[in-house]
């Protein structure tokens, strides 16, 4: 029998009103604007765009504001929003080699063509809290130097010239690109689907998985071949226009991980690779992604598969924080009927247990009496 439970509406409505007030906080304090979030909490915006899987700074900033700074809630809001818009199609693949680089470092070669460019980074800061930032801080104007016109080839392209590193797998003619927003993920999943999953996967989860490979659970000896951050142009082959239309530019971070060799009787040994790519300046995310991408290639590369980070089904099924939070957090929703049935079952079991004990006692007593 179903029992309709009513009476929550008023409480829910009032709870949401209270939430709106809690979100706003002390109203004598100035309200934060979307521009302020986008400009001054830029890395939070980048993360929400990456894991929300939607490049739109303004929407990500709105989501962060609405979610009171809860980034997973913000990611959830962005994912829900994207479901409301029609899709015009897919862009031409972006060319990260032609990136207008704002940061580019390699831990494998000191003297890379184009140089080591630090850009805006937390690296080499002392991680001491800076009280001068608490109010009215005006930064010094950035230093300038003559800009180089030298190209900044990917480090993997340089290694590739001598055959020291494996080449990237190329698409077969006419092969379609897998899209897990259109079709549910099946296992084993191809590399395109794995990378799509990791690109929108939770940074904390990927960080932990990547870290686990470094600590020995699926070790693959990584070097950060290159990390680059900057702007790339996006083009869209619009059918109505008849040619590739420039849409503007987006910011991306790319990580090329260079890993331990593979080789065989017929192939000379060479370095292997893991790849990371994400919206905005998302360095930790792309490094973790590249480590996990490489770990997930264990089977393909004939390595022993045993560690969690090498288990495709485990990693890809648990990387999505919107799915994960949905399932974990649904536990707090009313389960009264489920729980009532569990309670009924438990009472029955306890009754049976009690009856069995009584019978056992009785039979013991009989035995004693007989002896």
């Amino acid at each position, binding site marked *: 029998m179903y029992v309709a439970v009513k009476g929550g509406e008023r409480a829910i409505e009032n709870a949401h009103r209270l939430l709106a007030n809690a979100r706003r906080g002390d109203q004598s304090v100035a309200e934060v604007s979307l521009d302020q979030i986008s400009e001054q909490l830029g890395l939070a915006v980048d993360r929400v765009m990456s894991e929300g899987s939607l490049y739109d700074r303004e929407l990500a900033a709105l989501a962060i504001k609405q979610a009171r700074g809860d980034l997973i809630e913000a990611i959830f809001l962005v994912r829900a929003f994207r479901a409301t*818009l029609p*899709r015009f199609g897919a862009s031409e693949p972006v060319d990260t080699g032609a990136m207008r680089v704002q940061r580019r470092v390699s831990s494998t070669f000191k003297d890379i063509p184009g140089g080591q460019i630090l850009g805006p980074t937390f690296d080499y800061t002392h991680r001491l809290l800076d009280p001068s930032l608490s109010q009215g801080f005006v930064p010094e104007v950035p230093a300038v130097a*003559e800009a180089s016109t030298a190209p900044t080839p990917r480090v993997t392209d340089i290694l590739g010239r001598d055959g020291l590193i494996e080449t990237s797998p190329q698409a077969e003619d006419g092969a379609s690109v897998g*899209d897990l927003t259109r079709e549910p993920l099946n296992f084993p999943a191809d590399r395109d689907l794995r990378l799509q999953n990791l690109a929108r996967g939770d940074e904390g989860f990927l960080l932990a998985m990547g870290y686990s490979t470094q600590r020995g659970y699926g070790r693959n000896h990584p070097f950060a071949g290159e990390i680059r951050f900057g702007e790339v142009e996006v083009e869209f082959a619009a059918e109505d226009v008849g040619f590739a239309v*420039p*849409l503007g530019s987006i910011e991306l971070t790319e990580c*090329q991980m260079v890993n331990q060799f593979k080789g065989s009787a017929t192939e000379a040994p060479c370095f292997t690779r893991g790849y990371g790519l994400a919206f905005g300046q998302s360095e930790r995310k792309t490094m973790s992604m590249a480590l996990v991408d490489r770990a997930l290639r264990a089977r393909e590369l004939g390595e022993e598969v045993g560690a969690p980070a090498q288990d495709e089904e485990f990693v890809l099924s648990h990387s999505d924080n919107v799915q994960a939070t949905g399932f974990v957090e649904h536990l707090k929703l009313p389960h009264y009927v489920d729980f009532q049935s569990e309670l009924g079952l438990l009472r029955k079991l306890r009754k049976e247990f009690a009856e069995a004990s009584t019978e056992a006692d009785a039979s013991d007593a009989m035995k004693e009496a007989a002896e």
Partner: protein
Amino acid sequence: MDSVTQHNTQQAQRQAAMAVLAHAEAGEIAARLRNVPLPGHQDLREPESGLVMLRGRVGGDGAPFNLGEATVSRAAVRLASGEVGFGYTLGRDGEKARLIALCDALVQSRDFAAAVEREIVAPLREQLMVKRSREAEETAATKVDFYTMVRGEG
């Protein structure tokens, strides 16, 4: 000039104009459009917003994969003389897409192409170049100059 070359040249001009306009703000394009006496025109497709799936490549240069979507706006405008222009841009600014479409239609018009280049595209391109070279100079200042320490000198 044969018709194929002419077509390619015009396509290159349109792409070049779009590449600049996509980086400008709607307000900037609108302000500069006021310097061009506009012919009659109408919306062929009302501005609309949607999504484009952005693709990367495995390893940067391999097979394509789906990275994530971006919001994109588009519109189409037709001049009274028949030229049809298209406007596409990242973001949800439909008015900007409409302005780009209008400029694209004008670029294809013998009578307006030069004025659009002179009054709108060229100044916006210059502005974009100045911004980019400033950024490139700031970036260049963070380039590491390695030098070798020599021990036991002198």
